[in-house]
């Protein structure tokens, strides 16, 4: 909880916040704004007249655009949901059975420190047709050659991408939930039990509303990350259609410099989709709360 309304002078605040605000304003705000200028072909020399929506139009009318958005949404939504589901179960289990197990805590922290790139590589080595899983099934005679092993990498369903994201994000969400559950302790659930709430009712009407905000925040962050991440779908995804970030970078790094503004435009579209969906979900949650719907 924030402090009991401590006041600071404007001078003091400027001194504390100024440097950080400047950096974020210049680099983050500036980056997005300059990107927009480039995507709109705006230049200070020619002024407003030079503005054109051609690059955005090219992107929106591209026949691959819909497929690319669908794929990106599919990957980020599925991995977020799967990770959230497993995390809730895991966090509740840990809170119940091993809340203060330091070894378990340590092991669960390991994935947080491993870059996505490395995990993508290791799952490539595990799940590809010539990977360790394929060898394992072949060793026991269940498949005859790499080509009979089900396609899990560069496949239609992005299986390996989902696996990497789920593996990587579960600990993140779990720790977010655990910090709430540990502070909470078992007391509120005990109250629920003595007020005749069954195990399921206690989960639905007490635990879920309590972890709801943290779970929601964690899911939004995971969604935003997986929607805008490049490495994993680049390494493990199909060549067609590609996810939005991969498409953006392909355009940006194209030998044809005319494709560059289109790449920037896609990058901005990604940022816009993330911002809009997060804002929308917040509004929906607020609305639901006002209507008295719990969670």
């Amino acid at each position: 909880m924030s402090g009991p309304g401590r006041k600071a002078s404007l001078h003091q605040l400027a001194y504390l916040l100024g440097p950080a605000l400047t950096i974020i304003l210049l680099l983050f705000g500036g980056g997005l704004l300059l990107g927009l200028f480039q995507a709109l072909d705006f230049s200070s020399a020619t002024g407003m007249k030079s503005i054109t929506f051609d690059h955005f139009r090219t992107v929106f009318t591209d026949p691959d655009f819909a497929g690319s958005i669908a794929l990106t949404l599919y990957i980020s939504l599925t991995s977020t949901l799967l990770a959230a589901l497993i995390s809730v179960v895991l966090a509740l289990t840990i809170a119940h059975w091993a809340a203060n197990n330091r070894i378990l805590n340590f092991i669960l922290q390991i994935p947080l420190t491993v870059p996505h790139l490395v995990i993508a590589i290791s799952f490539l080595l595990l799940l590809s047709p010539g990977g360790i899983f394929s060898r394992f099934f072949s060793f026991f005679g269940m498949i005859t050659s790499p080509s009979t092993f089900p396609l899990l990498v560069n496949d239609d369903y992005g299986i390996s991408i989902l696996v990497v994201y789920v593996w990587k994000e579960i600990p993140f969400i779990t720790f977010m939930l655990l910090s709430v559950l540990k502070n909470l302790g078992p007391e509120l659930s005990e109250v629920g039990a003595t007020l005749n709430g069954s195990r399921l009712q206690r989960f639905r009407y007490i635990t879920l509303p309590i972890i709801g905000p943290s779970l929601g925040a964690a899911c939004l962050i995971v969604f935003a990350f997986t929607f805008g991440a490049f490495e994993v779908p680049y390494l493990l995804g199909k060549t067609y259609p590609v996810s939005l970030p991969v498409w953006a970078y392909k355009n940006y790094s194209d030998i044809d410099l005319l494709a560059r503004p289109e790449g920037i435009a896609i990058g901005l579209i990604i940022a816009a989709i993330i911002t809009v969906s997060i804002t929308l979900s917040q509004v929906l949650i607020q609305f639901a709360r006002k209507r008295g719907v719990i969670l």
Partner: protein
Amino acid sequence: MSQLELQNITIQYGETTIISALSLSVENGEIVSLLGPSGAGKTTILKTIAGLLQPADGQILINNISVNHLPAEKRDAVLIFQKPLLFPFLNVAQNIGFGLKMQKMKQRETERKINRILEITELKGLNNRKIHQLSGGQQQRVALARGLVLEPAILLLDEPLSNLDAELRQQMRELIQTVQQQTGTTMLFVTHDQAEALAISDRVCLLLDGSLRQTGRPEELFYSPADPEVARFFGCDNIFTTADSFRQQSDDVQNEQKMFTIRPEDIEIYSSDQQRETASHQHLFEGTVTGVVFEGRLTKLTVKVMAKEHVTVLCSRPAFHIGQTVWLRMPEDRIHFFP
């Protein structure tokens, strides 16, 4: 008919036994308080009755039916915790209606019950308040209402007043008594505060060192303690044996050694001037004041009698100083011999 009966309950935490072979019963419509110092295992007993902990041994009967095998949510007992523990994401009415919702009670019936209980607990009009908008006393009343509304066979209260300041505590205590009279709810009330226990309950069970020492009406425990420890718990340090210095005083009672006690406020104390005017000379003991502590309503005096016994005396507005010679009288009918 007893609403709650504990038969030889033993509770262990790991290897340590917290409560051993405890038996008690609470009759329909009674307020019974379970009194004991902090850390005596009172909360543990309530949690065990509520079904949040399992006893190592013994039977728990609610409405004369064994509930040992039942989980907490199936037991007709509601526990009110020390902290209000209101659900922060629900408003007042939703908090109170929580248990009814768990029972899937109809909306109209739920509302009717909530409104009735809001009235009884003096919370009328606060239906839609958010929890953080309530004062500490209001929160505790909501917690009480949340349990009462379920009309349990027994309401278990775990020091519900201990987080409130003195004045609120008094109000809340009176509220609980009024509510009890209005609803007839049977209550088991846990507290470490003897004044609270004596004031609120029909019967008091004193828990010391993991077992029940004495059960009875408040006056019984206070004036006729079962053993010296019970007497000391109620603030009476005057424990003597007839073999000691006071032999001559109790010669006529019995010859064998017996322990007895007398409450400090029951001892009469006289200065030498007053002593001459007192009629019953044979019961006066001469002593020297060794301590005077002004405690407000009463002043606590320590008097050394016969060069070895320290007697504690409580009296109002005394005019004694340390080193002064005084005379003590212990009225016969106020002396309590331990059984």
